[in-house]
């Protein structure tokens, strides 16, 4: 069964039809990049996957659970599906180490010693072990985002969602974050769904590229086809043309 | 920080000085009688919440009662047939300050003559011989003021009335609650906050007339002569009120008013109240 499956999903904000006829399957371990102009619905789409946004119609199965069914325990889904936000959303009142250890402790009831060991390993992996005692406000954007990734990884999720993870960063920090993400894409069996404008990243590690506009999926290609061949959709081609030249 | 506090301290000291000076300053005063004759008006401070003595009639927004009628009669005696009587509502708490700052010329508001008060104001001779009594719910085991002298008993009174001071002599063991006015005190009695309400019998009779189910018991246990209070030093005005009272008594007007207001009150000693 697919990790994430959208089956004729519709989403409305009041009368506004934000997501139209979404049909999409993402398999275990795939790294999928979601691109498109602003207002295309890509952020909305990714936020439906962990239930931050509800869907009104269709079926949305994530890790075997149907999100459209209100009996579904959304917290269970979120144990396995982590999210990294454009504005990091680190816990402002907790230290870096606490940020990483909090959820495993109270949600997974992980043993404290094991929790700390794993947390320090993750911090080390993202290159910030020496910042463990600091507070988010004391760190740069790039550092905060790497911590946010570590925080999500601490829950040992099957799937990670990234909602424009580098869009709020100064240019010189973008690479540090992308490197961490590439690392994850290559090393683990992690399913990744990434909303981004960073085409370099997409080219290097994405398995698939999805193009959205006006709430619809217009193009869904393997990365190879998208970048080396050509997208069949005209709109997608135009978009690609404009951003590649940067 | 220190600077701020110094400034504040200075301001406060200034305030206190100004306020205390203004309190002293008011003793150098005017001749109330002359002023009233000139304006052809006497301003009386009266009750507006006390049945039989001074009660606001909500239908025509006029205060009515024995004291109102007496004040009108006295005004005519002092200023002549066309003299005007103005009435300002007062409470036991506000009557003294209002007299002192000149808002009213005289107090005729169920005010008992006492030596302590005589230090602060000048009294006319008494115009009504009241006495302190207690009001209880019908069927109460309390039959007189001495029954109240038990620990745990609660007596209700009004702040500023000398009945709350007196009750301490007759029922020292009882707890005294001082409410802001008679209607508050009566409400408190009705909701069981206390066993008895104490004040002058005349006022209590008024309450029992309005509230069947509550009666005055035990008779009076003090003498509470009501007097008209004028600001200290206004001797001419005070003498004028005494003269007016004498004339009203002699003419039979006084007894007529007594009959008008107390003729139908159960238990009231009419004959004892008449004057010649």
């Amino acid at each position, binding site marked *: 069964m697919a990790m994430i499956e959208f089956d004729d999903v519709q989403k409305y904000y009041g009368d506004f039809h934000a997501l139209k006829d979404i049909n999409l399957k993402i398999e275990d371990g795939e790294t999928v990049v979601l691109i498109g102009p602003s207002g295309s619905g890509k952020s909305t789409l990714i936020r439906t996957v962990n239930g931050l946004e509800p869907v009104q119609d269709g079926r949305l199965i994530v890790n075997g659970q149907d999100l459209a069914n209100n009996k579904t325990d959304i917290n269970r889904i*979120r144990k396995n599906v982590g999210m990294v936000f454009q504005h990091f*959303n680190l*816990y402002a009142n907790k230290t870096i180490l606490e940020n990483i250890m909090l959820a495993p402790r109270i949600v997974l009831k992980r043993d404290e010693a094991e929790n700390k060991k794993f947390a320090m390993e993750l911090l080390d992996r993202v290159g910030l072990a020496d910042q463990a005692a600091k507070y988010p406000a004391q760190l740069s954007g790039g550092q905060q985002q790497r911590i946010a990734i570590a*925080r999500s990884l601490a829950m040992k999720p099957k799937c990670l969602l990234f909602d424009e993870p580098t869009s709020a960063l100064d240019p010189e920090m973008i690479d540090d974050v992308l490197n961490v993400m590439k690392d994850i894409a290559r090393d683990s069996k992690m399913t990744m769904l990434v909303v981004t404008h960073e085409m370099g990243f997409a080219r290097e590690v994405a398995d698939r590229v999805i193009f959205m506009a006006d709430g619809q999926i217009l193009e869904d290609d393997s990365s190879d086809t998208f970048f080396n061949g050509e997208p069949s959709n005209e709109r997608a081609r135009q978009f690609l043309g404009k951003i590649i030249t940067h | 920080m220190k600077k701020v506090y110094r400034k504040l301290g200075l301001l406060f000291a200034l305030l206190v000085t100004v*306020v205390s000076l203004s309190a002293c300053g008011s003793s150098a005063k005017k001749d109330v009688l002359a002023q009233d004759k000139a304006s052809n008006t006497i301003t009386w401070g009266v009750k507006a919440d006390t049945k039989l003595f001074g009660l606001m009639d909500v239908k025509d927004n006029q205060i009515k009662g024995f004291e109102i009628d007496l004040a009108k009669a006295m005004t005519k005696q002092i200023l002549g047939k066309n003299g005007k009587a103005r009435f300002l509502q007062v409470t036991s708490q506000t009557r003294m300050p209002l007299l002192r700052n000149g808002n009213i010329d005289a107090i005729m508001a169920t005010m008992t003559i006492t030596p302590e008060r005589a230090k602060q104001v000048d009294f006319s001779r008494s115009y009504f011989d009241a006495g302190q009594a207690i009001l209880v719910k019908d069927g109460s085991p309390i039959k007189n003021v001495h029954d109240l002298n038990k620990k745990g008993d609660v007596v209700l009174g009004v*702040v*500023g009335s000398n009945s709350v001071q007196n009750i301490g002599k007759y029922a020292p063991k009882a707890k005294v609650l001082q409410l802001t006015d008679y209607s508050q005190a009566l409400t408190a009695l009705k909701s069981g*906050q206390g066993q008895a309400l104490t004040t002058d019998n005349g006022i209590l009779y008024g309450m029992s007339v309005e509230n069947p189910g509550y009666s005055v018991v035990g008779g009076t246990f003090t003498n509470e002569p009501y007097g008209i209070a004028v600001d200290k030093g206004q001797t001419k005005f005070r003498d004028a009120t005494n003269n007016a009272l004498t004339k009203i008594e002699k003419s039979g007007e006084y007894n007529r008013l007594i009959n008008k207001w107390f003729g139908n009150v159960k238990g009231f000693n009419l004959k004892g109240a008449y004057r010649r």
Partner: protein
Amino acid sequence: MISIFQNYGGELFQGFWQTILCSIIALFFALIIGSGFAILEVIPNKIVHVIAKVYIEIFRNIPLLVITMFFYVVIPMYITKISGFAAGTIGLTLYSSAFIAETVRSGIQSVDPGQMEGARSNGLTFWQAMRYIVLPQAFRVVIPPLGNQFINLIKNSSVLAFVAGFDLMYQGNVIASDSLQSMNAYLCVGILYLVITLPLSYYMRHLEKKLAA
């Protein structure tokens, strides 16, 4: 003024402590009740919102004295005997709780919604997120306005004077009538209120600075 303090020291002392006692009890319960209703206002459930709103609108818009009189007069008639002090303290508690609820709610809503999103995405339940992340942050924001509420509450405790609650204001009335020196009596009472509120004011300002750091 000194004579007032000398002659009525006992009454003033009693009034002082009754005011403090009433204020502390009322603040304690008003904080609990107010925070409770504030949380009800932010829970994602419309029915619960309505209940909270109704409570808050009732107690915010009815004068404190009216609420107090209800407990002083109506409750003893139908339910149970209740002293002036109790009636005044209960009235003060309910009245203040409505204002505290709004203050706390505003504090909670001022916390960046991203904090809740981050926590929920991390697997925390709504209540876990509130407890560990949102409420602690709201708390810091809410301290200065709550300090104001406390000072208002202390002043509002003067409602006890109307129900013979033996607080400072009640004693002020009694002393003013007994001594026939209204101005001095109320000046003394005013000073005693300042003795309670000024240090509190100063402390709140200090707390604000500390939290802002």
